[in-house]
Structure formats: structure tokens, C-alpha cells
């Protein structure tokens, strides 16, 4: 068993939470301390959709686009968020406040449509609820 390998995903998650993304510096540091090649760490970091090697905004909005949310018209939620913060899925606002992504099933299908902002789940969404939720983001 390589202890460094076991720690890797845990440490990547920690760095992601702390800095909002995995910078080349933090990956290089991990490579050194865990004695793992940078390629391997980059391979793990790019496999998981909740890890990012590019800087993200302070608030990462993830709207679920999977079937149950799709059936409950998540498109209108996507359109509303787009209008409110002026960016498209995959983008980050210039002020670094929001990143906007579409995501696969988050397990809130009984209260679709749903989305996550950072680690909080917002469900039973209507276009009317969006602006208030976004206003509360710092």
C-alpha cells in the first residue's frame, strides 16, 4: 500500500475546499510531499467533477440537468441564472463571485428542479426564487 496515494484524494479535496481550485503550485507541493509524479496527481484531479484545476468563483452554482430535473423544466432555472449573473454554464463572473456549471443528478429528484451552491442544496426551485437565493451569496 502506498500511503501517499491513499492520502491523495483526501488532500486534493482539502485543497479544493481551502483555495477553491487546485493550482499548479498546490499540486506540485503535493507531488513533493507524497512522492507522487505530477502527472498522476493531475490525472486524479481531472477525473472528478468536483475538483477543478482552474480557478472558480467564490460561489459555485451547479444546476442539475439530469432526467428528473429535466422533466421539471430545469432549463427555465438555467435561463434565469444565466440572466441574473450574466454568464453561461462553464463560465466564471469577472468579479470572481460566481461560477456556473451544469451537473449530473444530485439526488434531490423528489424536489426537482434542484441546484447546489457550494455545498448547499436548493430544491423545488422556481424562477422567482432564484434572485433571492443569489442575493444571499457573498
Amino acid at each position, binding site marked *: 500500500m502506498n500511503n501517499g496515494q*491513499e492520502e491523495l484524494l483526501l488532500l486534493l479535496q482539502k485543497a479544493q475546499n481551502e483555495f477553491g481550485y487546485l493550482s499548479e503550485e498546490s499540486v506540485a507541493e503535493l507531488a513533493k510531499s507524497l512522492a507522487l509524479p505530477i502527472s498522476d496527481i493531475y490525472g486524479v484531479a481531472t477525473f*472528478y467533477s468536483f475538483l477543478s484545476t482552474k480557478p472558480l468563483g467564490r460561489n459555485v452554482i451547479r444546476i442539475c440537468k439530469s432526467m428528473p430535473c429535466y422533466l421539471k423544466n430545469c432549463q427555465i432555472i438555467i435561463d434565469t441564472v444565466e440572466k441574473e449573473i450574466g454568464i453561461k454554464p462553464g463560465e466564471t463572473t469577472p468579479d470572481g463571485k460566481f461560477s456556473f456549471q451544469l451537473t*449530473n443528478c444530485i439526488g434531490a429528484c423528489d424536489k*426537482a428542479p434542484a441546484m447546489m451552491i457550494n455545498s448547499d442544496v436548493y430544491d423545488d426551485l422556481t424562477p422567482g426564487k432564484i434572485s433571492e437565493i443569489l442575493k444571499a451569496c457573498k
Partner: protein
Amino acid sequence: MPQKLIVLRNCGVINPKDITTYLDRDGFKAFKKAIDELTCEQVTEEIKASGLRGRGGAGFPCGLKWDLARKAQGDEKYVICNADEGEVGTFKDRYILERDPFTLIEAMAIAGYAIGAKKGYIYLRAEYHHLDLLTDAIKQTREKGFLEHFDINIREGAGSYVCGEETALMDSIEGKRGEARYKPPFPPSRGLWEKPTIINNVETLMNIPQIILNGAHWFNQIGTDQSKGTKVFSVSGDVKKPGVYELELGSRLKELVEDLALAEKVKMVQVGGATGKIIPYEMIDTPLAFESILGAGAVTVFDETRDIVDVVYRSMEFLAEESCGKCAPCREGTEVIVEILERFCRGEGLEEDIEVLQRLASAMMLSSLCGLGQAAPIPVIDSLQYFRSAYENRIQKN
């Protein structure tokens, strides 16, 4: 048929933040019975005799899995609870974890005793933030002295559907990319760090304490010939009452979808999430059991306004995004099928596409490395069988 609560018996009854409310509901009595009155072998025999099969989708006999791990040689062994519920339309494990973490912990402790493991892991999907509740429940259990010989660690996923596949899940716990491994070796002989390991779904484990307390015979009376006990379903989509329902195995799909979830004008139901079988309304009386249809319990209902080709296209798009990419048929096949279905959605299908879809589906089912690629074409095959004209109508003329 009304709901029958075995797995969900404590949900909404106990306080998930207070172990004493669990102890008042016979909590840890099964664990005490196992270690005081039964040998490890007797525990696995009891589970075998109960007929309990895995609730994560594959339906492997639970007792047999435990027995293989118990007999396997290894200085260390592991019990893993698969709480990576990522199947589209599934939320039953979330519902359970939020309301009754203690039954799960007790079941894992029993499993640890049965196979001779000192360490367990709960692999929790990143989207579920019950880490604090679970951590606290484990702490309370430890303080009561029930985890003296077996300890439980929580590992959080990082956003990957394929990590719900048991071999990918183990690679993820080992800190790697969550890619499928070939089998054999199977986890009970060589699993986590090559040590004997059992991996059970949350719901499978939730049955264990009641089986130990009431006996295999009691459990064996519930359900059908090859499907014992109950099943918890997550119902969503075009229904008035989406939610979590527990039914005796063998209950009809109609009871779940129309009588409990109050669906109307149903066109079809997808049972088992993105890789689930598609059941047209004419077959709504199909029993829910391993013998017919089951999966992990995701039941997505579509009414008459829905378009089957669009539904299958979206399922496939999801699977293409979540394929780990290790094996060629799944990595390339999902992408090609998405390309074809996307054209059908636009009304630009080609005459030969239907045959190509069938060939691709067959190759993927037969040769993919893991369950994702093997099951991915199911919606394609089912929809071509039951709704072929929907495809034919979108073949471009000229």
C-alpha cells in the same frame, strides 16, 4: 398493497442525532445477539438463509458474499458501505442516511464481526452533506462501546457516477482515479488494497439487524421466490407525489407509480435510472422483483407528452459524461450513440442507424469492462423494442 417497512422502520421515528432514541427501538440488540450468541459462521449462514440479495442493482446474494470474505485468507479485511448513490433518479439512500444512520452503523459492525474485519468505510457521494450527522452518529456509537473491535471511516466522493461501481469505488478510496478493475479477482477475495473486502449498498445493510433479530425464516416469508424482503424505491418525474416508498418485493409497478405516487396518463416508466429498463404503460402490471425488473430502485415516470428518443438521448449523454474512459467499447461507444441519437432528435436519422445502434449496443453489453458500459445500451434496446416507430419517424427522407 400498502407499504411494508423494514428498511425504513426507524425513519421519522427516531432522532438521528440521538443514539438513545435508537436504543429504545431495539438498537444494537442484533449486534449484541451476534457477538454473544452466534459464531461468525452462524451470522453468515443466517444471512444466506434469509435470501437477502444486494440492493445496489446487481442483486448478488449478500450472505454468499460475506461467506466468501469470511473464508478468504487475509491479515486485514474491510467492510465498505456503498453510499455513492449516483444513479439518476435515486435518493433513497440520502433519505435513509438523513433519518437513521444508526441502523447502518450497527449493520456494518455486524458485518465486521461476521467476516473478521476491523475496519469499515462508508463511501459517501460528494453531493450528500451528511458527513457531520454520520460522523456524530459514529462518535455516539463509539462512546456507547459498540465499536470496540471495528471502526468506521467516512470517505467522500468527488463527483463521479462510476465510483458507485464497486471496483471503481475501491480505487477511489485508494486515492486513485475511480476506474473499473477487471474481475476476477472479486472483492471478497482481493478487494481494497488487495485484501478481502465486502461492499454493500446502504439499503442492503439496513436489512441486516432485523434479519439477525427476527431470524432468516421471518425474512424469507416476505417477497417472492427469488426476491426476499422489501425494496425501497425513489419515485420522480411526472407524478403528483414523488418520494421514497418501501414495498414488499413482487409488488406491481402500477401500485407504486399510480396508487402511491399518483401518476396519471403514464406513457412509460424507466426502472433503474439512466441504465434502467424502459417499461411501456401496457406493462405497468410487471412485478418489481429480481426475476423481472428492479435495479437500484430509481423509478422515473414519463407521461404522454414525453418523447422517448429525447429521453434515451439524455440518458446516453449522462453515461457518456460519466464513463471512466478506461475500456474502449464504453468510452467510444457511448460517444457514438450520443452522436446518432442527437441526429434522431433533430429528425436527421439515417436508415442504417437503427442497425448500427443495435450492433453497438450488443458489443458494449458483451465486452465492456464494468457494469456501466454493459448496462448503458439497455434504454436504447428497450426503446427500439417498444417504441421503434418513434425512431423510424425521424429518419430523414432522401
